[in-house]
C-alpha cells in the first residue's frame, strides 16, 4: 500500500513539474521555439517508446510506424475540425480534442490489427515489407480523398497541443507500456523475441501476443499523430513518411532494443541534435543511416542494450568503476613497490 502510494505521489509530482514548465511557457519565460521543440520531443517519446514495444520487446520489425501516426492524425483532425461529425457537437474544445485523440489512437489500433494479423501470423521478415507497403497505401488513399484536402493537406485545425498535453501523453504511454512489459503478456512477448520456436513449444500463443503488442503500439502511434497534427495545425499525406519511420527506428536502436528509458533518452537527444545541428541538415540522413548500420554491426541489441537507465544502475556502474579504479591503483602501488 505504501509503495503504491509513493508511486502515485511521484507521478503527481512529475505532472506538477510538467505543468510548471507549461506555465513558464505560457508566461514566455521559455521562448516559443523552445516550447515548440520540447513539445515535439514529448511526441517523439511517444512514437519511439511505442515502436520499441514492437521492435525491441517483441523482436519484430515494423517500418510503418509513421503510417499509424498518419491514421491517428487524420482521424483526430477530422473530428476536431468538423464540430458535429463522428462525435456529437456537445463535445467542444479540449474535451473534443482529447476524445478525438483517443479515437485516432483506436482507429490506428484497428488498422494495426488488420495489417498485423496477416503478416505477424508468419515467421520472418514479412512485417517489414507489409508495414512499408501499408505506409504507401495510406499515402495514396489520403491523396485521393478530397474530403481531407488530397495533396494540399487538411488544414485550419485549432492549436490544441501544448507542451503539457504532449508531456501527459508521453507519461501515460510510458506507464502503460512499462506495465504491459512487466505483466505476463510482456514476458510472453520477450520470450518470442528471444526464441520464437521455443516460446511456441512452451505453449505461448505467439501470433496472439505479437498482434496484441502491435495493436497497442499502433494505438499510441495514432495518439502521437493526433498531437502532431494539432501542433502544426495541419496534416498532409507527406507529413508521415518512411523517413519518419526510420527516424523513430533510429531512436529505438540508439536507446537500446527493449529499453524504454533508452528510447526516451534517444528521442529527446535526436530531436535536440536535429535542432542544434541545423546547418548540417543535408548530411543528416547519411549520418543517421551510418549510425544505424554501425550500431547494428557492433551492438546488435542497440547502443545501450536492453538495460533500463536508473539510479541503481548508475550507482552500480559507479561502484564498478570505483572498484576498477581502486584495483588499478592497488596494482599500480604493488607494481611500484616491486
Amino acid at each position, binding site marked *: 500500500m505504501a509503495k503504491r502510494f509513493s508511486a502515485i505521489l511521484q507521478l503527481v509530482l512529475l505532472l506538477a513539474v510538467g505543468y510548471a514548465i507549461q506555465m513558464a511557457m505560457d508566461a514566455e519565460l521559455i521562448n516559443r*521555439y*523552445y516550447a515548440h*521543440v520540447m513539445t515535439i520531443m514529448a511526441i517523439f517519446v511517444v512514437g519511439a517508446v511505442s515502436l520499441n514495444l514492437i521492435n525491441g520487446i517483441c523482436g519484430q520489425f515494423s517500418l510503418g510506424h509513421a503510417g499509424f501516426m498518419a491514421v491517428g492524425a487524420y482521424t483526430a483532425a477530422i473530428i476536431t475540425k468538423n464540430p458535429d461529425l463522428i462525435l456529437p457537437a456537445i463535445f467542444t474544445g479540449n474535451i473534443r480534442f482529447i476524445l478525438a485523440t483517443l479515437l485516432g489512437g483506436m482507429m490506428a489500433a484497428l488498422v494495426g490489427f488488420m495489417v498485423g494479423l496477416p503478416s505477424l501470423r508468419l515467421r520472418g521478415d514479412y512485417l517489414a515489407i507489409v508495414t512499408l507497403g501499408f505506409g504507401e497505401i495510406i499515402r495514396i488513399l489520403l491523396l*485521393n480523398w478530397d474530403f481531407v484536402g488530397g*495533396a*494540399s493537406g487538411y488544414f485550419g485545425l485549432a492549436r490544441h497541443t501544448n507542451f503539457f498535453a504532449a508531456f501527459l501523453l508521453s507519461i501515460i504511454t510510458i506507464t502503460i507500456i512499462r506495465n504491459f512489459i512487466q505483466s505476463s503478456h510482456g514476458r510472453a512477448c520477450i520470450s518470442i523475441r528471444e526464441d520464437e520456436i521455443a516460446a511456441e513449444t512452451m505453449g505461448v500463443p505467439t501470433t496472439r501476443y505479437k498482434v496484441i503488442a502491435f495493436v497497442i503500439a499502433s494505438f499510441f502511434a495514432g495518439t502521437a499523430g493526433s498531437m502532431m497534427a494539432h501542433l502544426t495545425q495541419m496534416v498532409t499525406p507527406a507529413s508521415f513518411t518512411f523517413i519518419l519511420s526510420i527516424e523513430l527506428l533510429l531512436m529505438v536502436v540508439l536507446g537500446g532494443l527493449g529499453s524504454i528509458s533508452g528510447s526516451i533518452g534517444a528521442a529527446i537527444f535526436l530531436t535536440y541534435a536535429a*535542432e542544434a545541428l541545423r546547418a548540417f541538415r543535408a548530411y543528416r540522413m547519411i549520418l543517421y543511416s551510418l549510425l544505424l548500420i554501425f550500431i547494428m554491426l557492433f551492438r546488435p541489441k542497440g547502443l545501450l542494450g536492453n538495460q533500463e537507465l536508473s539510479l541503481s544502475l548508475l550507482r552500480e556502474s559507479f561502484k564498478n568503476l570505483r572498484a576498477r579504479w581502486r584495483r588499478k591503483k592497488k596494482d599500480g602501488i604493488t607494481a611500484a613497490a616491486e
Partner: protein
Amino acid sequence: MKRKLSLVLVITMVLSLALTGCGNQPQAPAAPAAPEEIKIGSVFPVTGAIATFGQSSLNGTQLAFEEINNAGGVLGGRKLVLINEDNQSKTEETATAFQKLITQDEVSAILGSVASSHSLAGAPIAQAAGIPMLSPTSTNPRVTEVGDFIFRACFIDPFQGQVMAKFALETLGVTTAAMLVEQDSDYSKGLAEYFRKAFEAGGGTIVAEEGYKSTDTDFSTILTRVKATNPAVVFVPAYYGTVGPILRQAQAAEIDAVFLGGDGWDSDKLFELAGDAANGGFFSNHYSPDAGTPEVDAFLAAYQAKFNSVPDALAALAYDAAYMLAQAIDEAGSVEGAAIRDALAAISFTGVSGTVVFDENRNPVKSAVIIEIRDGKQVYKATVNP
C-alpha cells in the same frame, strides 16, 4: 519498479531541459554584434522530396541579396542577411523552422516556403507574430487567405489554368483535351482543376484525366489510355522533372497531340530530360527569356555567371520576391513588421516577371506569357493579361 520508472522520467526531463538550455548559450552574444544588418529568414527545402525546387529558390534569393548588398543594401546602407532554414520538404519541419526564425533569429520578414502545403503550415505562425511572409511560389489561393501579413509573388492556380485553357481554345482552336495530373502535388491538381473549368466553359471537352505520382517513372500505361481517346491537346501541369519523361514516353507511344503546361516546365533540364520530344509544346510562364527587358537580361546573365545554369521559374520568382521585399523595406523606411506589410500591400514593383501590384487578397496582378518550345529553345508566343 514504479519508483524506478519515475526516476527515469525525472532524469530524462531534467536532461531535456538541460539540453534545450544549452542551446541558448551560443545564440546570446550574436545579437548585438552587427546592429545595422537586417535579418531575413527563408524556409526553402534543400533536402527531401522537393529539394530541387528549394535549391532553385534559394539560388534566386541568394543572387538577389548579393546584388542588393553590393549596390549598397537597403535603408541607406544596411545589408541584408539571409538565414535559410531547410524544412526537409516536410510540413512539421516548416512550422518548426518558422518558429525558430521568428523567435530565435528575430528576422524581420520571411521568404517562403515553396510548396503551398508548407506555406500553409508556416503562415499562421508568421501571421500571429506579425512578421510579413512572402512566398515566391505557393500557388494555392488559400495561402494568402491566412491573414494580412501573407503575400505571394506568383500566379495563383486559377489564373494559369485559365490562361492555358483559353490559349488551347482560341489560339490553337481545339475542342478536346486530356490531362495528366500529378496527384501528390497541389500545384498540379490546382492548375488542372481550373484548366478543366475554363476549358469546359469555353465549349471544350476533357476526354481523359489520368493521375500519377511524382515518384512514378513509367507512364506508358496512362499514355496508352490517353492515346485511345485521341485528344487534340494534352495538358501536363507539373514540374520538368516528371514532364520530361512523360513527353519522351509520349513520343515513344506515338501520341500526336500538342502538349501544354504551366510555369513548372520552365527549365533547361526539360530539354535534357525530354530530348526532341519537348518540341512543339507550349507553356505559360512569368517572363520570356527573349523578352528583351533589362531586368530579364541582367538576371539571366548574372544567374548564368553565378550558378553556371539557366534559371527556372522558381529561381526567377524567388529573385523577384527578394527584390520586392527589399523595395518594401526601403519604402517602409523601417524593419518593423506592420510597416513592411503596408509597404508590400501598396507596392508597385518591376522585376524579371514584369510589373506587379497586389490585389486585395495580396495576390500579384501581373500578366503571363506563353512560350513555345521550338528546336530545343523557348520562343515567345503571346502575352496574356489578367
